[in-house]
């Protein structure tokens, strides 16, 4: 038995080919110091595009370096803009905010009260993959799950500083202001907005 999982074993792990005892053993053992780099290299091999992955954000999303910027990208190639602006604002959103919609996943007595709870599902506009789900009170702002300090992570943890520095500051407000600006402009030129509280928006 090898001390630490090799890259091949990690690949099997990601692709769901390991049996439970082996997974449990990996979970219960200490990590080797280059586990993250192995994982990053694997992630890079698995995607079709060539931008350098700086940090995986989940099963399908990555923060990548692109033309001096850092953008969120789906493994299908769809981009969600600068990592400091919540990527969810550029996803397709399906909001389960009525009893009928909630019953689709929580039938009968298990259904929560739509006046107290709304379930938002976020989908990739490129490939339709469900990327994230959040459950919040109705009207609650879209949550920004994770704004990593990429420079600090690469410099202090991985000890491989990135060539440029960009301060990790929440820019979601700008994205929202652009949304609002777009809406106002649409109103001024007289185009009637379809009035859906939640719907699809693509902004590029």
């Amino acid at each position, binding site marked *: 038995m090898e001390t630490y999982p090799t890259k091949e074993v990690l690949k099997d792990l990601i692709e769901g080919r390991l049996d439970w005892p082996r997974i*449990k053993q990996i*979970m219960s*053992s200490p990590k*080797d110091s280059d586990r993250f780099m192995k994982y990053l290299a694997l992630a890079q091999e698995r995607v079709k595009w060539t931008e350098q992955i700086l940090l995986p954000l989940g099963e399908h999303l990555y923060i990548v370096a692109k033309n001096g910027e850092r953008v969120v990208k789906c493994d299908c190639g769809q981009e969600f803009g600068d990592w400091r602006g919540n990527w969810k604002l550029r996803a397709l959103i399906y909001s389960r905010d009525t009893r009928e919609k909630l019953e689709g996943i929580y039938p009968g007595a298990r259904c929560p009260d739509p006046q107290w709870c709304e379930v938002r599902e976020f989908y990739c506009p490129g490939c339709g993959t469900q990327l994230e789900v959040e459950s919040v009170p109705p009207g609650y702002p879209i949550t920004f799950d994770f704004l990593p300090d990429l420079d600090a992570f690469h410099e202090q943890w991985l000890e491989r500083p990135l060539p440029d520095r960009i301060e990790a500051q929440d820019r979601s407000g700008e994205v929202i202001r652009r949304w609002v600006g777009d809406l106002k402009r649409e109103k001024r030129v007289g185009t009637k907005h379809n009035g859906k509280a939640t719907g699809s928006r693509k902004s590029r």
Partner: protein
Amino acid sequence: MTQETAQPLIVTCDAGGTMTDILVVDAAGRFSVGKASTTPQDESLGFWESLEDALGGWGVKLDGAGALKPLEASIYTGTTMLNTLLQRRGKRVGLIITKGFEDSFVVERGFQAVAGYSYADRLHTVTHVHNSPLVPRHLVKGATERIDLFGNVVIPLYEHEVRDAVTELIKAGVETIAILFLFSYINPAHEQSAARIARQTAKRMGREIPVFISSEISPTIRELARLNSVVIQAYAAEPVRAQLFHIEDRLERAGARNPLQTVLAYGGLAPVRYPRLYESVVSGPVGGLLGARYLGEVTGLNNLITADMGGTSFDVGLVTEGKIPLVREPEFARFIFNLPMVTINSIGAGAGTYIRLDPMTRRIILGPESAGAEPGPVCYDHGNEIPTVVDCDLILGMVNPDYYLGGKIKLNKEKALRRFREEIADPLGLNVYDAAQGVVRLINSLMRDQIRSLVLAKGYSTMDYTLIAFGGAGPMHMAGFTEGLALKGLATVPYAAAFSAFGCATVDYSHRYQRSTHLFVPAGAGPDVKASVAEGLTRAWRELEQKALAEMTAEGFDRASINLQQAAFVRYGGQLDDVEVFSPTSRMNTPADVDALIARFEDLYSRIYVSGARFPEAGFQILEVAAVATVPKVKPLIERRPLGAPTPPARARKGVRKIYRDGRWHDAQIFEMGELGPGNVIDGPAVIEASNTTLLVPERRRARFDEWGLIWVE
């Protein structure tokens, strides 16, 4: 030793995960130890090889048909059942269960999701997982019926549903059927009818299929443990029986007259035909504790701590006032059972335990896994590159590289040193000897904590206890892991490596029979309440005894030789733990008999805890009763031998070796254990070597060989 006259009287076998140890004892109390690799596919092969090895020590050959004629008892413990469970390769079982409970195997109990886990894993919920069911869902059928907690029939058994279920299960190819209904431990009527229907249905289909019901296998409260018991009997115990018959057959052909026995979890012996063979599921580690109790009985030590350090685990047990406490709901292979088992605390710390550095924190991580016999520690040079505790012992000069297992395995010290330096010492910036010493101290302190917590958590003091260390690595580490513990005494035996097998040889033929009850004596209860409790106890005991006598006489024991003891598990009303109280009278005839039982409970309770903890105001509950049937068996003789001179004989001296302790090198005298005898005293620093173990005597301490064959480290 006069080898010509040695004739095997008792053969015991402990087939462990890596080695099969056999201990042969003769009428004069002499031992011979045999070792062979365990052969999991057919354990009889390893058994036979190990037996040949052991008898070879006496010059007895097994090919002659009469070689085993003098044999009085042969006892086997193994790991087949464990492996059958772990690898899920048991029989194809069909399960019939009270309708609505078909998902019991999926739902389990929360505890089973972490059963067998280390403390760290228990905290990490991501590792928690349910067992994969022993019976797949499509082979579980519900039958409508209901008996309530008082044993009343609320819904009759829908017999046609049982018939349909059995038909479907047989068509689906099951090899055996298990049946569990709720509250069957109070009223087994529905289970019994269902079993009858199942047998009839199978017969009509031209099939003979074994049927097991939970009220026969384990008539105790809580259905998950009962379900595990009945299914594991059907799933794993029956295939094991086939292997045991195979061993018994070979023994018989070599002249053995008595049936092969196996050790049960609570420390009894039962023949391999025993109907509830699953009770032998955890028998291996039990031996050490039983051996210590026997040793204590003979030599007059009645408070003992047993510390068994083998290759993979460290097992600690207690004998208090000559009694071994039982756990009621032990966990094994990630299943909980309702089966009394001797109390043993186990951690993954052994001689083969891996040593690693956490790459992030640079902290030393010990285990929890270990190298086993193959590939073994680095010094075996069989392909393992991860240092182990034995490698440290070797680096520090404690282990003789040319005398490991009597020289059967040559140890590669260079490699152990190099790998330990690369993996541990260099990254820590320590010199290799200090680092190795640090690792040994660390594992010793882990074991010390384990001992301390077992004794102190019970409210006992280590000062009242003598610690007996055994297992292959016990004598090497015993001085270390007891450092700072105030003990009454510290001892080991020359046969430390085969002590578990020795322990199995000291067990009597004994079976336990238990069942749940609902009996309550409120505070200030009048004679009529007590009379009804007395009647309930007597009825339950009589029922258990009938079963006990029927089974033991069927095993060939004379009725007159069977000794019966009656016990009740008593607790204060509302408490969660109970105490096993052996009844002063075999029957409860009067309310005064109940009072006597309760008085004995209160006395025991105040000795286990303190008298101020007693709580008679809450009344007394009896939720389980037991009967123990025992027939004495011949035991290995532990003879008192005359003490010789303190000075060891010159032929025992093997020279001087440098050992590293406390940051410097010491010149340790080396002795051959086999050449030392009663009365000899060895001053530390010294190393006493035997073929299968090594005893370290640190500086400022000494080893004294007493008249009973014990070696005291003082």
